C-alpha cells in the first residue's frame, strides 16, 4: 500500500506551496485516476507520491510517504525505484540515451539492479509482450515515433516489476489503439497486486481502467470516489475536466427524458 498523509509541498525557490495537505492512499491492485485542470498540481503530486520530490527534485515537504509500511524518507533513490516507479509525459526524456536497441532500453532497469541475466531477460521479454513491442526490439530507441517511444518508456517501467506505478499522462502521444494497449497492460499489472496512479486527460481511458478517481484543483483534492460517481458529478465541468464519453452520453440521454435506470442498463450492457 502507498500512503501519502498530509502532504504539503513547495518547490525549491518558490514562495508558495503547490500541494496543500493532500492525503492519498493506493491499495494493492488498485488503479486510481488523477484528473484536474492544467497547473492543478497533478505532476507535482506524481513526483511527491513517488518519493522523487523532495528526494531528487528538492523543495520542502510536510507530511509523510509510506510504502508498504516503510517510510520513504529514509530510502535511497535506488531503493525507492524498487518499490515505486514514475513515468513522465515526454517520451524523449524517458530514454536512457545509452541503449542501442529497444530491448536494451527496456532491460536497463533490471540491469541496473544487478539481477542475473536470466531474470533480466525474462522481465524484459515479459514487459515487451505486455505492450506487444516484439516488432521494435531491434530498433534504435532514438528512431521511434512519439507513440512508440511512449510505449517503450512504459515497458521499461514494467520491467522493474514495481509494487507501485505512477504515470503522468502516459498516453499523451498515443493513438486510440496504443491507448487501449496501455490500458490492458495496466490492468494486467494491477492484477499482479501492483497499485497504480494515473494522471491523465483522456478520461475515457480512466473510465475504462480505474476503480477510483481523484480530482485535484489548486493543489487540493476536491473530489475522490468511485469512477462512475466522480465522472457523473456535475462539478467536473466547472473544474475544466471533460467527462468520458460514457458519462456525457448518459447525461445527454437523461436530459432528454430517458429513464436513468434504462440508460445505466444500456451502457452497462454495451460496456460488457
Amino acid at each position: 500500500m502507498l500512503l501519502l498523509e498530509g502532504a504539503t509541498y513547495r518547490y525549491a525557490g518558490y514562495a508558495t506551496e503547490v500541494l496543500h495537505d493532500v492525503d492519498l492512499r493506493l491499495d494493492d491492485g488498485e488503479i486510481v485516476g488523477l484528473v484536474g485542470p492544467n497547473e492543478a498540481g497533478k505532476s507535482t503530486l506524481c513526483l511527491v507520491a513517488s518519493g522523487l520530490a523532495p528526494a531528487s527534485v528538492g523543495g520542502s515537504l510536510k507530511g509523510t510517504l509510506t510504502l508498504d509500511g516503510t517510510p520513504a524518507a529514509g530510502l535511497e533513490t535506488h531503493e525507492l525505484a524498487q518499490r515505486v516507479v514514475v513515468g513522465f509525459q515526454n517520451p524523449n526524456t524517458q530514454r536512457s540515451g545509452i541503449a542501442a536497441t529497444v530491448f536494451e532500453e527496456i532491460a536497463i532497469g533490471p540491469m541496473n539492479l544487478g539481477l542475473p541475466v536470466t531474470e533480466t531477460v525474462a522481465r524484459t521479454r515479459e514487459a515487451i509482450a505486455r505492450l506487444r513491442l516484439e516488432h521494435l526490439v531491434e530498433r534504435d530507441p532514438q528512431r521511434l515515433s512519439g507513440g512508440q517511444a511512449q510505449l517503450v518508456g512504459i515497458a521499461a517501467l514494467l520491467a522493474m516489476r514495481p509494487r507501485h506505478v505512477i504515470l503522468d499522462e502516459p498516453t499523451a502521444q498515443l493513438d486510440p489503439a496504443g491507448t487501449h494497449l496501455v490500458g490492458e497492460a495496466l490492468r494486467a499489472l494491477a492484477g499482479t497486486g501492483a497499485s497504480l496512479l494515473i494522471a491523465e486527460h483522456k478520461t475515457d481511458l480512466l473510465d475504462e481502467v480505474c476503480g477510483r478517481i481523484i480530482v485535484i484543483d489548486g493543489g487540493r483534492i476536491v473530489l475522490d470516489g468511485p469512477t462512475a460517481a466522480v465522472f457523473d458529478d456535475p462539478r467536473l465541468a466547472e473544474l475544466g475536466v471533460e467527462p468520458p464519453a460514457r458519462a456525457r452520453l448518459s447525461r445527454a440521454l437523461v436530459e432528454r427524458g430517458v429513464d436513468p435506470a434504462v440508460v445505466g442498463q444500456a451502457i452497462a450492457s454495451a460496456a460488457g
Partner: protein
Amino acid sequence: MSVFTRAGTTVLFTIGPFDATLQGVDFAGQTLVRLLAISTAIGLFGLTTEPRSFVLDLERRGLSPRFAFVALATLEAVPAMVERASVIASAQRARGLDTEGSIRARLRGLLPLVGPVILSSLTEVEERSLALEVRAFGKPGRRQLLWRIPDSGAQLAVRSLLMLALVAAIAGRLTGTFPALP
C-alpha cells in the same frame, strides 16, 4: 624540415643556404615512421572498433558504470542534438527566419537557433535524470551487462603477441638495444 635543419657531418646535397645531411634524413625517416605508426593505430582502432562496444567492454572489465554512462550518453547526445537543431531550425524558418543566403545572413540566422537548442537540452536534463533514477541508476555496485563481445582465440593470440612486442620494445629501449633518437 629536419632533413635540412638537423646538424650533421655527411652532406648529401645543398639547396641555397640549406644543407641536407644524412643525419637529418635519418631523423626525418624515424619521425615519419613513428607518426605513421601512431596514426595508423588510431585509424585502425576507429575503423574496427564500435565505440559503444568498446565502452561496454571496458565496463565489463571494471570501468565505473557512471563513467561508462557519461561516455555512452555523450556518443548518443550528438545525433540527438543534431536532430533537435534541425527541428528547431524548421520551426524558426516557419516563423520567417532566414537561414539561407550569404555567410553573414546564415550567421545572423544561427543566433535564434543556438538559444533554443541549448535551453531545451538543459530543461530535459532534470527529467531525464529523474527517469534514470526511477530505473535504479544510482544503485551502488556493478550493473548486469547482457552481452559479451565475441573474443576469438585468434584475437587473444594476436593481443598477447602485441603485448609481448610492447614489453620487448620497452625492455629494448631500457637496455639500449633500441637507442633513442639522436
